[in-house]
């Protein structure tokens, strides 16, 4: 999957299996990623678990769990808010599109989460105050939390190498057609329909179409960017671009 970290790093990762995204004093988020195409290192999210921890007079501990084709508009215990404490309504679940989009508002920690199912896979986006992000319980064990530090180096997929191969046609099968139905040009054209700016959301869309052939990933990238527009606090940073060999951002084409 593609990851935009709290510090606006953009990475494409393997991270097959269960991985933690966030873990701090107030909540934990974990995802499970499964291969999209057998034999490929590209995976996508099929399960997501969020645990909101018990907090003062506000909320009981609540767990939210979603899986492919099961995006509930309630916590695991069937409730839609933070329990029966005085501030219980400062944690609530709102169903935006049945089976497709859920928002979780945790006002007691200034946090908003958007969970979507796009095609067969889940997407996750969060807006969280820095203070909450940094309220870690054990600084020594924070390396693996993807939203905070990104993916470990051995889990990253190099966008540029993958793209260069696609452009050169290394991915073609014996018949000369691309293995999953999209040529590089066709993937570019398809992604352009939804993502006119050639930023990393556009690039990730192209990557996904080439690696999976699943056109739904166009919408995953599109909605991920819609979530950025809703949740990111700095309009100037909505779009992010590929860094060049010297580490600075490439100019938008």
């Amino acid at each position, binding site marked *: 999957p593609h990851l935009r*970290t709290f510090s606006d790093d953009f990475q494409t990762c393997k991270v097959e299996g269960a991985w933690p995204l966030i873990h701090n004093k107030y909540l934990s988020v974990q995802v499970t990623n499964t291969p999209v195409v057998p034999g490929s290192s590209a995976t996508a999210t099929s399960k997501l678990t969020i645990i909101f921890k018990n907090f003062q007079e506000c909320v009981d501990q609540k767990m939210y769990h979603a899986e492919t084709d099961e995006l509930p508009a309630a916590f695991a215990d069937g409730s839609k808010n933070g329990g029966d*404490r*005085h501030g219980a*309504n400062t944690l609530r679940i709102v169903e935006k599109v049945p089976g497709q989009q859920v928002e979780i508002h945790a006002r007691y920690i200034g946090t908003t989460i958007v969970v979507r199912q796009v095609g067969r896979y889940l997407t996750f986006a*969060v807006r969280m105050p820095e203070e909450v992000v940094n309220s870690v319980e054990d600084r020594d064990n924070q390396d693996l939390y993807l939203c905070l530090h990104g993916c470990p180096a051995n889990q990253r997929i190099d966008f540029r190498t993958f793209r260069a191969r696609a452009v050169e046609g290394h991915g073609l099968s014996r018949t000369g057609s691309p293995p999953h139905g999209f040529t590089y040009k066709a993937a570019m054209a398809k992604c352009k329909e939804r993502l006119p700016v050639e930023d990393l959301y556009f690039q990730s869309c192209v*990557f996904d179409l080439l690696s999976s052939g699943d056109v739904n990933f166009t919408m995953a990238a599109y909605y*991920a960017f819609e*979530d950025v527009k809703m949740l990111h606090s700095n309009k100037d940073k909505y779009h992010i671009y590929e860094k060049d060999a010297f580490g600075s951002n490439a100019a938008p084409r």
Partner: protein
Amino acid sequence: CKILKCNSEFWASTSSSGPEEEFCTALRAYNNCVRRTARTCRGDLAYHSAQHGIEDLMSQNNCSKEGPTTQPRARTPAPPPQLQPDSQERSDGPEQCHYERSLHRQSSPPNYTHCGFFGD
């Protein structure tokens, strides 16, 4: 199992003697607190003692099970610096349950960050 926290909150809220209604109110809050621990405290002696103790105290003091509850404040854990509780409560919950509202008196507004995870 956090039954001891319920016990200490109850004793803190009843440490000063007050009218009987206040005791019933605190007792109901205690009962709610104990009920919330039911899953994690199953089989815990202190939990089962508390359950029976509450029933006894309720009947001894003629407290009804339905009615207002208080949330004892004296011994709740200290919040992080910018989440300081406020004694003023609003209809939709105590001030400390509203992150932004509790920051109004802070000098600088909070910085928000974003994380996204999508695609393949």
